[in-house]
């Protein structure tokens, strides 16, 4: 299976809901009236994209096609166009489906540091394992830093992944200062001449100010060793998350300037539409999607593919 097919497979549920239902909804020849539009709004909201983003698409549809007979292709073009625009933002991120590492920043010299953060249980640690796997497959040397010293057996969890991956890990005892783990991780990455250092962090809710400050501290400590670090601050979002995702993106960005999202657990029935709202409001792009619990279940996110997977046959 090619990447595009796998993306589509991962998003099959999204596609099913939006495509088959919408084909039924926008019947050629019928009049595009308010009932149809309201029904369509429901489909959009069910993706978790939120009222504002859904409104924008529905308004555009109403303007362009309202009260007229439905031309299915023209309606599709409008929907697809709006969604692509919402997702693409300023177009500053380079997407190259042939190169799964293309969305990631790279340090000019020395180790590239990736800081991974997010609320509790979203899939941070697992995503780190998957990204490490991707990096290693592409010939990179990876060091992990077990910065979650709080949750029960979090260090053990990342250690088990590092053993499976065969990569180095820096760890301390449970309860140790996460910033000191990050510091040692950076030192180790430089010392080993690694290509990437990936720092795991404990899950935290964005409303916990002291824990958000702790993230900032981790960032500052990393910079003591590697001044440009972190080159990439990834926020992991759970695809089942609703509108709270926006609040997460705002607060984590305020703390560590998120450069991208990893949308985990997109293999279920959730559609991850809140990323559309995040992209629209904050410009943070989705870089990867998680489509399973295994080490290979990570895909590069491609906005065109995402929209096509939603709407193409």
């Amino acid at each position: 299976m090619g990447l595009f097919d796998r993306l589509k497979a991962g998003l099959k549920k999204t596609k099913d809901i939006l495509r088959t239902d919408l084909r039924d909804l926008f019947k050629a020849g019928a009049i595009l009236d308010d009932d149809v539009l309201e029904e369509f709004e429901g489909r959009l909201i069910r993706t978790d994209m939120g009222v504002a983003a859904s409104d924008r698409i529905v308004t555009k549809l109403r303007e362009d096609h309202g009260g007229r007979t439905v031309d299915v292709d023209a309606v599709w073009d409008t929907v697809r166009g709006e969604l692509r625009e919402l997702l693409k933002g300023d177009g500053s991120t380079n997407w190259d489906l042939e190169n799964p590492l293309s969305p990631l920043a790279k340090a000019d010299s020395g180790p590239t540091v990736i800081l991974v953060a997010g609320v509790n249980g979203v899939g941070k640690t697992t995503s780190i394992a998957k990204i490490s796997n991707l990096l290693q497959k592409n010939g990179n040397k990876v060091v992990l830093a077990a910065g979650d010293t709080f949750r029960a057996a979090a260090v053990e969890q990342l250690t088990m992944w590092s053993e499976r991956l065969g990569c180095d890990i820096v760890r301390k005892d449970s309860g140790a200062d996460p910033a000191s783990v990050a510091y040692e991780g950076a030192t180790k990455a430089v010392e080993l001449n690694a290509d990437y250092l990936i720092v795991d962090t404990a899950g935290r809710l964005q409303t916990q100010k002291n824990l958000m400050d702790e993230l900032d501290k981790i960032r500052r400590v990393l910079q003591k060793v590697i001044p440009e670090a972190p080159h990439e601050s990834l926020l992991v979002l759970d695809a089942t998350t609703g509108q709270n995702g926006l609040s997460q993106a705002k607060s984590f960005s305020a703390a560590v300037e998120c450069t991208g999202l990893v949308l985990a657990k997109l293999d279920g029935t959730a559609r991850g539409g809140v990323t559309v709202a995040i992209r629209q409001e904050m410009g943070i792009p989705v870089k990867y999607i998680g489509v399973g619990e295994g080490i290979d279940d990570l895909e590069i996110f491609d906005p065109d593919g995402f929209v096509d997977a939603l709407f193409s046959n």
Partner: protein
Amino acid sequence: MFEGITEGLTNAFSAFRGSGKITEANIRDGMKQVRTALLEADVAFDVAQDFVKQVTEQAIGAEVLKSLRPDQQIVGIVNQCLIDLMAGDHQLAIKRDGITVIMMCGLQGSGKTTTCGKLAKMLKEDGKSPFLVAADLQRPAAIEQLKVIGDQVGCPVYHEDPAKSDPVQVCRNGVKQAKASGATVVILDTAGRLGIDDELMKELQRIDNRVAPDTCLFVCDAMTGQDAVNSARAFNEALELDGVILTKLDGDTRGGAALSVKAVTGVPIKYVGVGEQLDRLEQFHPDRMAGRILGMGDVLSLVEKA
């Protein structure tokens, strides 16, 4: 964000202030605001639609009370309908004699393992002797995690070598051992799974059939959006849930999932998780939840302002 909604509602309901009569026309705008508030709180689309319809009917049918302005009356009705919808038996049934077996289930990362520890702690403080069973053989270090939590609570944890066992066997042996050791409540920690994962859902059903838990609890992340209905329905169809525990309510999520899950399954919410620490488990209060979903900490204050 909350202010905006509250203000919107106040304005919408103020629009027919003094008109003295609730009609479909003057309630429409206000109800649109209610609907938006619910959707922004992540209440499932269909649940929000039905709710608004129901409240509209009820409000129009209702006699205008002399003592209240119509806007106050509608806010009251909306609030009360939310409370009624989420009401149920919020107590956890524990047998007085013999052993009670509780099975936890839910999506990946929802908070099952942590909640096992919280329940064990709560039961222990209540004079019961809880016993934990590590039936997640899937996630790296899941057993280790439950062992650490068991240690913190001071509660035994049964586990087997994941390479040589399977979850059904672990649960059966675990319950056996719990009985032998004189425990009164057994809590089974299962691996996270998706409702559409047939194989893993069947595995849960096998545990359900072979161990026959007295209570099956669905652990649901309060930040869940529209998907809450899909997963709750799938788990309820596979297992006939007895209760829901809503986790991670300590953040700023509006928690519309509470309404969605209750509406589609009818299963009552038993507890809410309000922190990572093991003492952060609280009773579920439908009235507090209603205010939260509406984005109004205190609905009565809105009524006053209106």
